[in-house]
Every structure is written in C-alpha cells, then in structure tokens.
C-alpha cells in the first residue's frame, strides 16, 4: 500500500492538486478511512511541503458522521472540519515580525531614482521607507507610505507586487528574488495602524464642500486628501459598508481580521468626511443634485454591472456572478455556513476568477476548474496568482469558451467549445467538451452601470483627462469607473489622490 502511494501520490499531489483524504482513498478503491489514512496524510503533506489544504481526518470524519464532505453532491455548506475552515481562511501570507522585517529590509540597495518607485502607481518612496524599517523606525516608514497612499495597508495585502514594484526591483533582475516590498509595507503600515495613530492632521477649514460618489479605494483616497486640505467631504455609497471592493471584492484570506473596515475607520480619523450609506447615484440622487449642492464632484463608483456569458442556459440554478459569491463569502461570519458546489466551474481569466476558484477550493469543493477562452499568457491574473490557484488544486483550462449550460433546472454540466487564435481574433475550432458542474461562477468582467448622462464615455468607462477631469466641468472621476490605468486598488488610490489635488487647486484658485 505504502509503495503504491509513494508512486502515485506525486502525480496526484502536483498534477491536480491535493484533494481530500476521502477522495484520495476512493482513488485507491477504499471505501472507509482506517489507519493508513494517517500515512497518506503525512505523505501528501511531505510532498506538498506542508501546503496541504485539508487536515488529518477528525474522529467524526473517520466515523463518517460529518454532515457533509467534499464529496457531497450539490451546493452545500459545511464540507470541511472547523479546523480546516479556520486554517484555509487565515492570512494568505503571514506578516513579518520585527526581526524578519529588518533582515528583509537590509536586502534593499537604496537604488538611485529607484525603479520600484517608478513602478508603483502611487509613487511611494520605497527605498526610503525600507531604510526607515531597517533603522528601527517603522512608524516613520509608515508615514512615508501613507503620504503617497493612504490605503497603503490594504495595498500591501492586495497589490500584485509581482507585476509592479517587486518586478521592477533590481534584485529581481539580479537574482530572481526581489526585496519583499509588499510584506515590508505591510509591516510598516500595520505597526503604525495598530497604535491607532493617524499620521496627518486636517488643514484649516476652507468652507468648500465636495461630493464623492463611491466609498471604495478611489473615493476614500480622494476624500482623505480633500479633508487633509480642509475641505468638507460627503461620500455617498450604495452599500451598507464603506470600502468598496476592499470590503466586498477582495479574497477573504488577503484581508483577514476585518482589515478593510479597520482601515476605513482609521482613514476617517482625519475628520471632515461624512459617509452616506445606502445612497446610489441615479437611484437616490442625480449628478445634477451634486453639482448644485457641492463645489466639486468626484465619481468613484466602480463597475457595478457584470458581463453576461451569452451562452444558452445561463439562467439555470447554480450559475451566478463570481463577484457576488466573493462578496457573500467576505460578509459571512461563519465560513462553514457558505454553501459551495462539489464540482465548480469558474469562467474567466482575471483576479476575480482566481479569487472565486481558490476560495471554492478552500470551502471544500472537490473539483474546481477555471476556464478561459484565450491562452494562459493573456489571462489578466498574474502568473503568481495563477500559480496560487494551481497550488490550491485549481485546474486551469485555456482556449475554451462556454457554449451552453446544461441541466434540468439546475446546472449539471457546462459545454465548452475550443477556441483558436485566428488572424482576426478568436475562432471556434468546432470541437466541444463538457465539464461536470453543480456550480458555475461567471467572472468575465464588470461594466459601468448607470453612468450619469452628459458625461463622455470611452470604451464603456467615464472618459477622463489629466488628473481625472471628466468632460463636465466641476466633475472628476477615478478608479475602475474611469478610463486610464489598470483596475487595481493601488491605481484607484492614485487616481483619487490626484483628482483631489486637482480639485483642491481649482477650489483654492
């Protein structure tokens, strides 16, 4: 038995991801778990260098008394043990302790005109803040970060640093191992935020009022910078909580401990910012209302719409938007209560697809497949994120587009057609295949919904020039709803900040 395991386990562990002990044993034709399960567990753990997603079976699992398991058909909750849920949704990357931070900081070369600064959308003086960590002054480091990026805490957690600052790091070029800028940033910002200290003070009141639509990264960044300069800001948000995608759209394991809300509370300490929850533009007020009631308007409402699959059967039960799944999971107090399918198919190739797929696995789905219509190199999820997905046991299928969703009322299979790159775009090869699915997540992009009339749009987004100026005087826009820059938290923060400075200059002229 052990010999067979030794031969087969690597295939199983590395090729398709580690599955539950149950399915592993089924693989070997065993109906029940008995002592060799422990051996299997240790073997897999060794092979996966401890990154095992399931724990050693509990007594209840051994006895088969657990209500559900990864093998339970359909969309059900409670597939894993409490220990598994807790482990799967802890910090994706552990924070550095003080000594680790100083060692990591010491690797920075303090480059002249550093490439990492250029690569950062918010232009954080990275070598300076790292040197401040290295010299034992993390609070000063945090101030250096926050001066450029008031959401430096969240960005430290969610930035795709591997395609930004860390990709530009000269040590990435030198040895393929960049300075751990993201983790160092988290160390610095966490240190200061843990003290509850807000490092900026509000300027003298100007008597000017600015309306901000959307309490996401763009809106809050804009609001904070305006408040710093003494303006009064009212932020309108359609959702019950502030934070935007930080609160509703980030994978749970990237912002544990309710960090998004803690960051909002900390940010608001600047004063002069009021948030109006449950107020949506177009539903509860119009742009004209804001223009008449405020000295300037900033739009940062993000992309509320979701693209359709345009495949037959899309309306069957079990098919839903990945962003809703991610939001529900974030808001769920008890992960074990979040239902998940046994066979999950995620359609799309971006960060949302990866976040949905990985979290499906973490909730105990047995099989999770990401299907993307183009080649892997075209996926907007970074290589690092893709690797994260595959190491979590997610299978990635490329060059396949959904053709139809099958099932009698609820989805049972998704049919895909293979795609090839033609001279004028993708063409269907005519060959199709089906994937078993009891749950399907659509992650094929979000769209701007309910853009106010009168604003010039470009490619479905609000067209902006310069520091977020829209086609209408007195109205600025930034973040995902506006043109320019990638749809990243850090880009949104930069755009909100820059628009604020432009608004401030205009108001004080």
């Amino acid at each position: 038995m052990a010999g067979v395991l030794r031969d087969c386990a690597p295939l199983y562990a590395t090729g398709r991801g580690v599955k539950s002990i149950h399915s592993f044993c089924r693989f070997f034709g065993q109906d029940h778990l008995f002592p060799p399960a422990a051996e299997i567990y240790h073997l897999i753990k060794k092979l996966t260098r401890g990154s095992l997603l399931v724990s050693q079976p509990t007594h209840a699992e051994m006895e088969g008394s657990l209500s559900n398991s990864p093998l339970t058909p359909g969309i059900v909750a409670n597939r894993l043990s409490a220990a598994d849920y807790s482990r799967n949704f802890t910090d994706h990357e552990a924070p550095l302790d003080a000594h680790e931070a100083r060692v990591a900081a010491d690797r920075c070369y303090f480059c002249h005109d550093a490439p990492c600064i250029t690569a950062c959308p918010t232009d954080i003086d990275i070598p300076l803040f790292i040197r401040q960590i290295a010299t034992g002054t993390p609070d000063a480091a945090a101030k250096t970060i926050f001066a450029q990026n008031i959401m430096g805490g969240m960005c430290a957690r969610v930035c795709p640093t591997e395609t930004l600052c860390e990709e530009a790091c000269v040590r990435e070029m030198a040895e393929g191992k960049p300075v751990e800028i993201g983790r160092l940033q988290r160390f610095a910002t966490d240190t200061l935020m843990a003290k509850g200290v807000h490092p900026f003070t509000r300027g003298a009141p100007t008597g000017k009022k600015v309306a901000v639509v959307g309490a996401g990264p763009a809106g809050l960044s804009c609001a904070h910078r305006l408040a710093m300069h003494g303006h009064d800001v009212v932020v309108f948000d359609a959702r019950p909580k502030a934070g935007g995608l930080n609160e509703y759209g980030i994978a749970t394991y990237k912002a544990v401990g309710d960090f998004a809300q803690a960051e909002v509370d900390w940010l608001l300490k600047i004063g002069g910012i009021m948030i109006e929850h449950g107020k949506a533009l177009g539903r509860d007020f119009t742009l004209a209302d804001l223009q008449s009631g405020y000295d300037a308007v900033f739009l940062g409402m993000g992309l509320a719409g979701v693209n359709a699959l345009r495949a037959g059967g899309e309306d069957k039960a079990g098919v839903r938007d990945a962003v809703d799944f991610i939001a529900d999971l974030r808001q769920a107090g008890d992960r074990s209560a979040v239902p998940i399918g046994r066979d999950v198919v995620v359609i799309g190739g971006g960060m949302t697809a990866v976040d949905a797929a990985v979290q499906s696995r973490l909730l105990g789905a047995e099989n999770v497949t990401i299907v993307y219509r183009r080649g892997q190199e075209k996926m907007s999820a970074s290589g690092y994120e893709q690797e994260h997905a595959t190491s979590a046991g997610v299978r990635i299928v490329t060059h396949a587009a959904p053709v139809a969703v099958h099932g009698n009322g609820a989805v049972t299979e998704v049919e895909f057609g293979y795609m090839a790159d033609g001279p004028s775009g993708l063409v269907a090869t005519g060959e199709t295949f089906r994937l078993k699915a009891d749950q399907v997540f659509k992650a094929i992009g979000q769209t701007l919904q309910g853009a106010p009339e009168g604003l010039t749009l470009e490619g479905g987004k609000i067209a902006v020039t310069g520091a977020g100026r829209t086609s209408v005087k007195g109205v600025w826009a930034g973040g995902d709803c506006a043109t320019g820059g990638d749809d990243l938290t850090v880009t949104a923060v930069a755009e909100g900040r820059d628009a604020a400075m432009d608004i401030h200059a205009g108001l004080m002229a």
Partner: protein
Amino acid sequence: MADLTTTFIGIKSPNPFWLASAPPTDKKVNVERAFAAGWGGVVWKTLGSEGPPVVNVNGPRYGAIWGADRRLLGLNNIELITDRPLEVNLREIKEVKRKWRDRAMIISLMVPCDEESWKDILHRIADTEADGVELNFGCPHGMAERGMGSAVGQVPEYIEMVTRWVKQHSRMPCIVKLTPNIADIRKPAEAAKRGGADAVSLINTINSITSVDLDDFAPEPTIDGKGTHGGYCGPAVKPIALNMVAEIARSAETRGLPISGIGGVTTWKDAAEFMALGAGNVQVCTAAMTYGFKIVQEMISGLSDYMDRKGFTSTADLVGRAVPNVTDWQYLNLNYVTKAQINQDDCIKCGRCYAACEDTSHQAIAMSADRTFTVKDEECVACNLCVNVCPVENCITMVELPKGAVDPRTGAKVGDYANWTTHPNNPSVAAE
C-alpha cells in the same frame, strides 16, 4: 591536505591557529574542548599575582555592533584577567599540557610593574611545563587603572624594562602583547625587541564605546546606569590590526621579529592575510566566542586548500610574502592609470555607482533615461568608490591604461614608473 604544522619561536603546533588569551582559555574544561576541536594552541587567560582573586563586574561585560541579520561585527568587553585562584590555574595548565603534548600552551601574565612581582610569578609558573609566556601589556580597562596592562604597554621604556626582567628570570620564550591604543605601534615593538622579547603579538583590544543607550543616555554595556570604555575586537578591527602587523614587519628596526597576529581573525582567509603580512601564526577569540570552537575546522581546511592551490608546502612559505609590497604613499606609482569599467551584462541598474560618484566623488558616471550607467573616462580619477558600492561583485572593474595611452582626463600619456619623490609638484624636489 597541506601540512599546517607551524613552529613559532621554537614552539611547535599542528596548525597556526591559537586561541587568544580570553574567556575561552580560562579553564581546563574549555581548553581541552578547544584542543579536541582542533585548535593548534592556546594562550591561557591572563594570570595575575598571588593573592585575593580579581573581581569582575556582575552586570554585562560585553557590548556589540551588528550587521545585517544581527551578524556580530564588533565586540567590546570590560572583563578583567582571570578571577580564578592562581593555584587552580597553574594546576590545570599543567594537567592540560601533559595530556596535549603536541599543542602549544602559552601563559599570559600581568602583574604589578616591579621586578619582584614578575620574578615571583615566573617562578610559580616554571613548573607548569608550558611552552612560553605572553606579557599582557595590552588590556585597556580596569587593570590599566592599576598601572598594569596597557598602562605599561603605552610606555616603551616600561615594556623594555619588564621584558628584560622576564628574560632574566625565566628561560621560557617570551611574547610581548601590544596595545593598539598608541600613536605609533613600532615604538613598543622596538622596546620589546630591545628588552629581549622573542616575539610580539598584536593587537590587543581597542579602547571603545560600542553604542549609547538613547533612553538612559549611558554607554553600552551599561552597569547600573554607567558605562566605561571597553576593549574592541572582532571583524571590525581587522584592518587596524593588519596595518599594525605590517608596520612592524616592514620597519627596519623590527624586521624579522616574530609576530603573532591578532585582531578580528574570523576565517581562514583573515588568517592567511595576517600571515602574508608577516604574522607567523594567528590568535583568535571573537570568532570562537561567536560561533564556538568548531570554526577552527573551516580555518584548517580553508588554509590548507589555499596552500595546496599556491603550492606552499609549509606555512613559512606564506609568512611575510606580502610585506615587500607594503610601502609608503610616496613610493606609489603616479603613472599607474586605471579607469572604472562597468560590465553592462552584469549591471542590475541599481544606480548606486551613479549616486556615489555624482554626489560624493568626481561626477564621472553618466546615467541614461533607460538606466544605462557608463563611465566618463575624461572625469574618472579611478578612485574605486563605484566598485566598492556596487552590489554586484566584479560588475565594475578598474582597467589599467597601457603605457603610452593618453589619459582622457589629463590629456597626458601614461609614462614609466614615477612617484612623489621625483614629482615636480613636490616642494622638496623643487628645492633641489
């Protein structure tokens, strides 16, 4: 495996690595473990006169400075000489020496500066079968305040006098340990030689304050709110020690006087450098304190490999080999012209060379928009700073201009060897 057997002033040891007089050599149990680990010899921690034992502080005795990842770079201490009873030390020395016949056993001594005291201690140790004595004229704290240690070592006349007493009252080979806390290291070395010393050992520790507690405003190590200067040692002091060893090795008055090199020896390479500058062997303490006795194994294998590579059959082949190349500034070749050259394939575009040269040197490196860094030969004075700040080894090298080539900076052709003594700008040349 090269033969590392070393004979130093007639004392044979299986390798040139001795443990210096310090806490690691204070007890039989330690010294035996050191010998078992492979050390070639020890200088037993300094013995004082008969009488009530020395008293040490009961707070911290060490201060330190660290590099990245808390790598210990420098250590200072305020410990005094052995605080164990004299007869215990003497008994243990004898026991160890009898058991480890092939290892060098030197006894470090420090007694008041009068002939009777020295005569007495020499008489007491005569029976230990030790191979030699080392006179501790270096210890910079505590004992110096009582007229011993560096208080003697800073006065060449005292060194000569005490050395003479020692040679007169003992037949043991005598090593005089020198303090670096002096303006010209050659003077005490000359005094030791005049007094009849068989060798000098250097350097002892350097007066130092390693750091200041910025909350308590007290130097470290802090004893109940106060601190004092301690003796500095470890990797940080090696360059100072190397220079002092070389000065004695190349001075006409002391040339040929055997030297035991001490000061920051941490690796085989450090040891080889001391030996190349004239040290017949080396003594180690801080490295053993940092890593334990086992490090001697790396020193042994490293020196052996190096000697094999060089074809040296004895450590004597290495000793002093670099001494002829240590000279005064005035004899350096002013017609030796080099230019920094940056290997673009190795460059990682950090720009440190640019910042260093532009901000603090000769503005001789250009930076392009795509972060390509190139040397401006017409500005480069070959200072080497860019090489030193570059994080990539051998990315920037200094390339010699051939004789006859025109130096773009000066417009002059590279000529034959010429130094300051014949340079037209030298006032003493012009005066002739």
